[in-house]
């Protein structure tokens, strides 16, 4: 595992995450309920992968599994050659669907993450806050921010780790159109710089704008995956077809 990481960093400017994400027959249960059921997915090692699917499909669990926060009961999850684990997770940042902010100021929240990566500096913090449109909020208690501001702060913290892989769980769900556009711009920008982005969203328009490829989940399974254009023009699975048309999937 360790070698895989060193091997990757020795490639130097090879920028990308170095390796795509693969799920092989992954199963995950809680209290006897099979929440992820024989999931097999291949996510390419670059570009923006958008994950879609109805509520409860398993999108958030998919990100947690990929990030190593929870462990599969069955099957295998790998990033390239490396099984998911602590050393892999260190190169990744996850923006949670529900923000978890420290009981500190906005600035201290960013500083905390910068410091954990051994690179705290006022300029870096200010740059990050500017990028997410939180300049002027530095001294505010993070938990006093509005929902959308909290999500933007989460985004700043994620960027502070300078990840190779950015996992985003509906990061614009409560953002106004301008802030959404700003986040999308950041996402496209980091993806261009070689960061692998996996982006969960319910917003079909946003998915069309961002996606290079799409993974569609339903009932704990990956029912479809493929290039974005093809997916949106002609979804192959009845589930995705119904979802895109705004119908309930039962």
């Amino acid at each position: 595992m360790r070698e895989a990481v060193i091997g990757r960093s020795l490639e130097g400017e090879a920028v990308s995450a170095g390796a795509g994400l693969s799920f092989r027959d992954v199963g995950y249960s809680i209290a006897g309920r099979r929440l992820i059921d024989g999931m097999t997915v291949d996510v390419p090692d670059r570009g923006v992968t958008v994950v879609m699917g109805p509520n409860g499909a398993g999108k958030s669990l998919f990100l947690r599994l990929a990030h190593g926060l929870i462990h599969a009961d069955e099957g295998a999850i790998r990033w390239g050659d490396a099984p998911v684990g602590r050393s892999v997770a260190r190169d990744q940042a996850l923006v949670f669907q529900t923000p978890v902010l420290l009981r500190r100021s906005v600035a201290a929240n960013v500083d905390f993450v910068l410091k954990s990566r051994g690179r705290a500096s006022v300029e870096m913090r200010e740059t990050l806050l500017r990028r997410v449109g939180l300049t002027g909020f530095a001294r505010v208690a993070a938990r006093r921010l509005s929902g959308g501001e909290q999500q933007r702060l989460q985004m700043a913290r994620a960027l502070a780790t300078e990840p190779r892989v950015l996992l985003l769980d509906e990061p614009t769900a409560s953002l106004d159109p301008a802030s959404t556009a700003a986040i999308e711009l950041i996402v496209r920008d980091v993806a261009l710089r070689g960061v692998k982005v996996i982006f969960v969203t319910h917003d079909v328009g946003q998915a069309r704008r961002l996606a290079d490829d799409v993974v569609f989940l339903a009932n704990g399974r990956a029912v479809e995956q493929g290039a974005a254009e093809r997916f949106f023009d002609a979804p192959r699975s009845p589930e995705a077809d119904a979802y895109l048309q705004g119908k309930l999937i039962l």
Partner: protein
Amino acid sequence: MQGFGEILALAFDLVLSGDGDLAEIVWLSLRVSISATLLACLIGLPLGAVLAIARFPGRNAAIVLVNALMGLPPVVVGLLVYLHLSRAGPLGFLGLLYTPTAMIIAQTILIAPIVAALSRQVLEELHAEYAETFRSLALSGRQTLAALLWDGRFALVTVALAGFGRAVAEVGAVMIVGGNIDHATRVMTTAIALETSRGNLALAMALGVILMMLALGVNAAVHSLRLTATRWSHA
């Protein structure tokens, strides 16, 4: 027998006159109980943190035990410490019985479980909330602990104050291991017990008033901490 109002008036006179004996007793009380609180935090905080964060076999039993020890009767603690420190006891050679040090030891044992149990609760709640975020950031155990202690600092100070409140108000333990010796080990609670039995009600009441003001002060501190915490959205 004097009336209650009269006694209270005498008591306030004593407090305001800055009586030397009174000051000595109050000072010793504070010295003993503050020392015990600091020591109890030194023991109880790490213990509470381990119980909150670490997962090990027997953890639940340890939590139940620590919670149960919160209710230790002071006289029992006094008795146990007495048995260890008395001339015939295993630590008798130290000659600590009937010294302020013995009182500090007894009060430390009395309130360390309180600090441990309450700080465990504080840190566990915080940890439940932060755990995934910290693991996502790949923080070390040390970094996690430091962050929890810092973000829980207001609640943890409240815990320490609760321990201090219990220590300064207890009488059984310090009576047994201190012996209530004048100018040596006499503290507020033991003095109140003695002076009341002697019929010296004004002095007893004066000490009672001071004790209650202390309780008031501690609670005011707790409350203003809570306000500060809310302002910073810690609550």
